[in-house]
């Protein structure tokens, strides 16, 4: 005992003496009365449970009080569940004779004061389920006589005081549902009489103290939902009295200690949600009293070696969500087994359906889902006659559903989805009068849906999605009065919807999409007042909608897209709770009802590909939650109402392919979430609004095929997320703004069929993500093709045709190895094509001024012989080229002849003494002699060089008469001519 405790103790003595002095001559219970009345005055008592506390009545008759036999002392105060609030009155500490204090289930606030240590006679202290906060006072360790301490379900924080180990008489310790942290004090091992220890739902961490094995009387130890880590101490196996061990949802690791088999009285073992690994110890088979065993959500591996043969009291076994392998032992169950629930889902169990389970005749719930089980379901499965839930989904079972399943008369929930089951549904299914849920989706089942299914009067949910069921929906479906979900999507069902379906009045979700159903909707649908989701897309439904659908006020999601419905859409606007309405691709006509605006939660409105006319109702501006508005491909007219600018959450706005008129609205720039804007193929006029630059999240902007004029605003460069920009087929003029280089994510850029002029900005070469196409064709673009286009390494299509581009093709374009389509035709380009272009057709380059090289004619050849392959412009061009070339050659020849003539004359004159004789051999010989003697060596080199170059001149005459000097001059000239 430290000095503070001593001083507190002496203070206590002093106070106590004062009280004695004050109450001298009176009896103790009347002293208590004094304090109790003061306690009453401090507590808030809305229910009046303390009304009987009055000096007019004897204290021992006061509500909640118990006196000692001689009525001398108040020994118990029990005000449980009395809606009392306020903090614990300090006067309470004066009731030192109290043996029992129970204030549980009230609204008491504040902390548990240290003065509680004064109530040394307390044997029972119960304060659970209040709003007490603060920490557990160390002084609680002074209550040496305490046997029951239950203070859980409060907001108590901080650590469990080690002084709790002083309470050696303690039998019950309840500290659950608080915010206690720190570790479990090792002193807990001092509590030799402890029977009940509940520490659940706190934030306790650290190890489970090995000292716990000293609590030899412990029957119930629950520490679930904390953050305990480390291994389960092997010593825990010494708790021979333990009946309940619950360590679920902690971070315990390591393997399950085999010593746990020493808990010979254990009835309940829960270790779910830890990090335990290794195999399930075979020694668990010794826990013969075990009734409930949950080892789920750990990392346990190996095979299942627990046997019901040993554990004959087992009722519940849960091993789900581990890594268990192998199959279930064939002798798992005894004939007289008590096993009711077996959950083995989400493991790696393999093999066929475990026949050993068929002996578990008392089994009510079996979950083998999410394993690797395969093979057929055994016909003898009906031996599990008490089964209510059969969950075999997400395995690889095949074969068909055995007709014997009709004998499982208690079956309520049948989950077979995500297997490979084939065949049809046996008609015997109709015998299952308790069947509530049947999920067969994602299998390969076929045949028709048996009418007998509609005898299963308890059915609430049918999901046959993703099979091959054919035929029609049973006409008697209306017998299923409790049906809430009918999901038949993606089968091969045909025929009309039976009118009786309208009598399934509890139906909330109806999904018949992706079938071959036809006919019109039955008028009986008006009775489906609970219906909230109806999806009929991808069928062949037709005709107008029944007007009575207007009475379905709970509809939230409607998808009738891709059918042949006609008439007005007004019957679908009765609900004000719509969140999604998709009628895409039908033949609906009439105007868009303004009444749609009453569904203020509408997020997706898709009416594309219908025959709707009229204008967009301005009331749609009230749809503040609208994200997706698709009205494309209709006959809508008029201007787009400016009220839509208040739909600030719009991400997709698709109005293309209508007849909208007027200026393109500038308020579009205020829709900052816009990712997709399609206004193409309308009659919009005026300029591209510069404000569009504010829609910085735009990914796709398509304004093509309108009457837009003026320049492309340079603000387009602010659209830095843009992937696709299509402005083609307008009357846009001016130059392409260089700011477009900032649209770095563009992979598709189409500006063709406008009146754009000026050069192609070299900045386009910075759009290195361009891939699908760069189309600038059919404009008035001039100047040279910027060499920077060679940086567009991913570009697959490039179209610059029908412009006024001139100059040579930049060699950098040869780098465009990804190109699949190239069109540079009908410009004024010239020069030699790089060999990379040889794979493209000549039409890619035709109609230019002076392009040559493969696939066009060789730059050396006359192009005549390819005329038949070329366009008329190309022919003209080629003829011009031929005439030009011929002229040049003629001139050249004349020149050569003149030179030869003049040289010849010189030679004749200089050699006249040797006679004019037949010159060739003579000259040659003469030259050889000269060179042989070292004269004119320099000339010799020139001669041969010139000869080789002359050989390339097509029409060159090899005239051996000419002298070396003369030939040399010819060579120089031909170079100048550029032949």
């Amino acid at each position, binding site marked *: 005992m430290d000095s503070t405790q001593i001083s507190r103790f002496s203070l206590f003595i002093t106070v106590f003496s004062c009280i004695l002095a004050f109450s001298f001559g009176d009896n103790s219970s009347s002293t208590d009365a004094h304090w109790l009345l003061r306690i009453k005055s401090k507590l808030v008592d809305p229910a009046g449970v303390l009304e009987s506390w009055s000096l007019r009545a004897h204290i021992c008759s006061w509500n909640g009080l118990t006196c000692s036999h001689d009525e001398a002392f108040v020994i118990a105060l029990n005000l449980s569940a009395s809606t009392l609030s306020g903090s614990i009155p300090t006067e309470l500490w004066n009731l030192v004779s109290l043996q029992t204090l129970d204030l549980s289930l009230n609204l008491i606030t504040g902390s548990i004061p240290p003065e509680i240590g004064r109530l040394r006679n307390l044997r029972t202290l119960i304060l659970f389920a209040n709003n007490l906060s603060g920490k557990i006072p160390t002084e609680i360790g002074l209550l040496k006589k305490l046997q029951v301490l239950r203070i859980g379900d409060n907001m108590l924080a901080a650590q469990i005081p080690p002084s709790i180990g002083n309470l050696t008489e303690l039998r019950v310790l309840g500290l659950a549902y608080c915010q206690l942290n720190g570790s479990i004090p090792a002193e807990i091992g001092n509590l030799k009489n402890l029977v009940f220890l509940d520490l659940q739902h706190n934030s306790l961490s650290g190890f489970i103290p090995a000292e716990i094995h000293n609590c030899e009387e412990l029957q119930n130890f629950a520490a679930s939902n904390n953050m305990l880590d480390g291994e389960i101490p092997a010593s825990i196996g010494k708790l021979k009295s333990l009946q309940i061990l619950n360590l679920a949802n902690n971070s315990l690791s390591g393997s399950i200690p085999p010593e746990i088999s020493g808990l010979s009285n254990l009835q309940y073992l829960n270790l779910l949600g830890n990090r335990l690994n290794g195999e399930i110890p075979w020694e668990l088979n010794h826990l013969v009293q075990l009734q409930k065993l949950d080892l789920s959500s750990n990392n346990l591996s190996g095979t299942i070696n627990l046997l019901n043969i040993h554990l004959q009291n087992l009722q519940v076994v849960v091993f789900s969500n581990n890594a268990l392998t192998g199959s279930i032992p064939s002798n798992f169950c005894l004939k007289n087994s008590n096993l009711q629930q077996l959950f083995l889902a989400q493991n790696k169990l393999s093999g066929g359906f475990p026949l050993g389970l068929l002996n578990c005749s008392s089994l009510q719930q079996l979950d083998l889902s999410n394993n690797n089980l395969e093979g057929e379901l055994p016909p003898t499965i009906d031996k599990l006659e008490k089964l209510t839930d059969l969950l075999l989904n997400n395995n690889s079972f095949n074969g068909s559903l055995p007709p014997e399943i009709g004998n499982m008369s208690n079956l309520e929930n049948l989950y077979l989805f995500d297997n490979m089951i084939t065949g049809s549904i046996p008609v015997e299914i109709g015998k299952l009068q308790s069947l509530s849920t049947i999920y067969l989706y994602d299998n390969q089942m076929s045949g028709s849906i048996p009418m007998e299914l509609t005898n299963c009067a308890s059915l609430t949910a049918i999901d046959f999605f993703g099979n091959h069921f054919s035929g029609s929906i049973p006409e008697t479906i209306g017998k299923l009065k409790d049906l809430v979900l009918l999901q038949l999507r993606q089968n091969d069902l045909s025929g009309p919807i039976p009118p009786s379906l309208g009598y399934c009045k509890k139906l909330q979700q109806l999904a018949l*999409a992706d079938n071959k159903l036809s006919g019109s909707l039955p008028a009986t649908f008006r009775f489906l007042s609970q219906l909230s989701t109806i999806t009929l897309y991808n069928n062949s439904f037709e005709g107008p909608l029944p007007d009575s659908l207007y009475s379905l006020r709970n509809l939230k999601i409607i998808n009738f897209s891709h059918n042949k419905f006609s008439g007005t859409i007004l019957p679908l606007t009765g609900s004000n709770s719509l969140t999604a309405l*998709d009628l895409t691709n039908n033949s609906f006509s009439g105007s868009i009802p303004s009444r749609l605006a009453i569904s203020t939660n509408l997020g997706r409105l898709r009416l594309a590909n219908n025959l709707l006319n009229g204008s967009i109702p301005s009331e749609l501006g009230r749809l503040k939650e609208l994200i997706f508005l698709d009205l494309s491909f209709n006959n809508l007219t008029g201007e787009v109402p400016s009220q839509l600018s208040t739909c600030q959450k719009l991400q*997709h706005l698709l109005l293309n392919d209508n007849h909208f008129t007027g200026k393109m609205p500038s308020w579009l720039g205020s829709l900052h979430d816009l*990712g997709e804007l399609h206004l193409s193929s309308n009659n919009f006029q005026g300029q591209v609004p510069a404000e569009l630059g504010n829609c910085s999240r735009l990914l796709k902007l398509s304004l093509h095929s309108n009457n837009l004029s003026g320049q492309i605003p340079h603000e387009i460069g602010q659209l830095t997320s843009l992937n696709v920009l299509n402005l083609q087929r307008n009357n846009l003029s001016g130059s392409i703004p260089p700011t477009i280089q900032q649209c770095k*994510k563009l992979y598709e850029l189409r500006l063709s069929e406008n009146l754009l002029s000026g050069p192609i900005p070299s900045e386009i070469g910075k759009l290195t*993500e361009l*891939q699908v196409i760069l189309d600038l064709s059919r404009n008035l673009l001039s100047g040279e093709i910027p060499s920077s286009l060679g940086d567009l390494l991913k570009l697959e299509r490039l179209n610059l045709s029908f412009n006024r581009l001139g100059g040579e093709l930049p060699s950098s374009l*040869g780098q465009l190895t*990804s190109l699949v389509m190239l069109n540079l035709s009908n410009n004024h380009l010239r020069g030699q094509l790089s060999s990379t272009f040889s794979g493209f057709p000549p039409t890619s380059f035709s109609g230019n001024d002076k392009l040559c090289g493969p696939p066009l004619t060789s730059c050396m050849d006359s192009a005549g012989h390819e005329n038949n392959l070329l366009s008329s412009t190309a022919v003209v061009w080629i003829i011009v080229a031929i005439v030009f070339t011929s002229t040049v050659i003629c001139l050249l020849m004349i020149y050569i002849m003149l030179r030869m003539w003049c040289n010849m004359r010189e030679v004749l004159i200089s050699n006249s003494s040797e006679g004019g004789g037949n010159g060739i051999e003579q000259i040659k010989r003469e030259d050889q002699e000269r060179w042989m003697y070292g004269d004119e060596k320099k000339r010799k080199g020139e001669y041969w060089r010139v000869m080789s170059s002359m050989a390339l001149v097509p029409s060159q005459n090899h005239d051996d008469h000419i002298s070396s000097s003369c030939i040399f001059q010819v060579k120089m000239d031909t170079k100048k001519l550029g032949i």
Partner: protein
Amino acid sequence: MAPLSVISLSLCFLLPLLSPAISTNSEGNALHALRRRLSDPTNVLQSWDPTLVNPCTWFHVTCDSNNHVIRLDLGNSNISGTLGPELAQLQHLQELYKNDISGEIPKELGNLKNLVGLDLYGNRFEGEIPKSFSGLKSLRFLRLNNNNLTGSIPRELTALSNLKVFDVSNNDLCGTIPVDGPFGMFSMPSYANNMRLNGPELKGLVPYNFGC
């Protein structure tokens, strides 16, 4: 030819044929599974709502007229995480680049028989180039440059007769370079900066994996 060698090589296009689609939204499910693997700090995948009928209205996803995903653009989006086998459900995957995607390239991508272009460059992929890529029969553009890929260039890739652009530069590949099939066309920059890559295959003289 030599002077034209351009920097990047290209590509692959393959289309993966799927097993009979069990659920029509298998592509949406696959993309949603992908989303769960990825960290997306700038929320570019916010529109990926798995409850929609198909993923065709999701941003960065492009579908054809049959509502099949043909294009996936996740470039420059600060996305990180790993790719999973579920991508094999997509028919025409392109553009998955310049992000921070790590882990191995899932071999299941080799099932994409219709894939035409596969750009996984500029990420942090590691491990080997899957041999299964030889199944990408339609592939024309394959850019795997600027990753941390190791091992040799699978010789099986010589079966990709449509391959036009191939770029594995700036990785850590080893061995020799195949010479058959489309590999006759690719120039050296396609292989640049792979310190352990040893030049063209010398059949019979040097082991294919020389230096690995």
